């Protein structure tokens, strides 16, 4: 089973890289782009085949290492091989 973890800054946390991307998009002529936030994508290969157990384990990984929950949110996507 594969897991994809999306980590992004929480609302209210300044994301200067996202801001710079937004400004550059505007400079390139892309109109109508609002707030831009840049995050991280972490892909994991898991030996676990049970989705419930896999999710639980990845949640623990997020809480312990993959995200800093003071400043970041995380979202987990699971996919069968």
């Amino acid at each position, binding site marked *: 089973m594969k897991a994809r973890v999306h980590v992004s800054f929480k609302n209210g*946390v*300044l994301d*200067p*890289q996202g801001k*710079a991307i937004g400004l550059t998009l505007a400079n390139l002529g892309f109109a109508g782009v609002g707030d831009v936030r840049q995050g991280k994508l972490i892909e994991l290969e898991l030996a676990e085949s049970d989705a419930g157990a896999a999710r639980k384990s990845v949640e623990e990984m997020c809480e*312990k*290492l*993959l995200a*800093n929950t*003071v*400043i970041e949110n995380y979202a987990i996507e699971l996919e069968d091989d």
Partner: protein
Amino acid sequence: MKACVVVFPGSNCDRDVQVALSNVIGGPVEMVWHGDSEMAATDLIVLPGGFSYGDYLRSGAMSARSPVMREIIARAERGVAVLGICNGFQVLTEAGLLPGALLPNAGLKFVCRDVRVRVENSQTPFTNSYEQGQVLSIPVAHHDGQYFAEPHTLDAMRTGDQIAFRYDDDNPNGSLDDIAGIFNQRKTVLGLMPHPERAADALHGGTDGRGLLQSLVAALA
């Protein structure tokens, strides 16, 4: 007084702080490798500046989970003094020994220059040789120094006199409330972005950082 400096892969201010501390203490300062899970008895543990683990994932994230950190967290809970400078500050927040987090600088640039920092609480083992409100000139050198905490955390820190240093009209990184350094509730753990060990000898061009090390000797020796 016994002190040790923890060395992570990618630490680069470990020797600077060892030399500065050793000069103030007048004796040797031990180096401890991050992979060690045991550590001799010590009065002060220093987490030095640098780019441990290449700042992978988040600054300080990997180091905060190093084997030696379990022992450091246990000792900090027993009241042993812990000082985290720059990357060491990032490690302390990642390890949960200090509240909040350090984000990339608001200007997205690495900042390396002297800054003016104000002593906000001089009644601690780390700051007793300074005057309350004294303004110091100490270098910073960081990319991820923008201190952030949730509003309720910031309120609790203000009430608990946990703000150690603020940038004095000279904020290089956009940190919340101009915060340059903070204590834990008991004032036994300090994390700060400026590098006192780089302003500890006349040859450095300034000695304003030396007082921090002298405070520790006065409090712990």
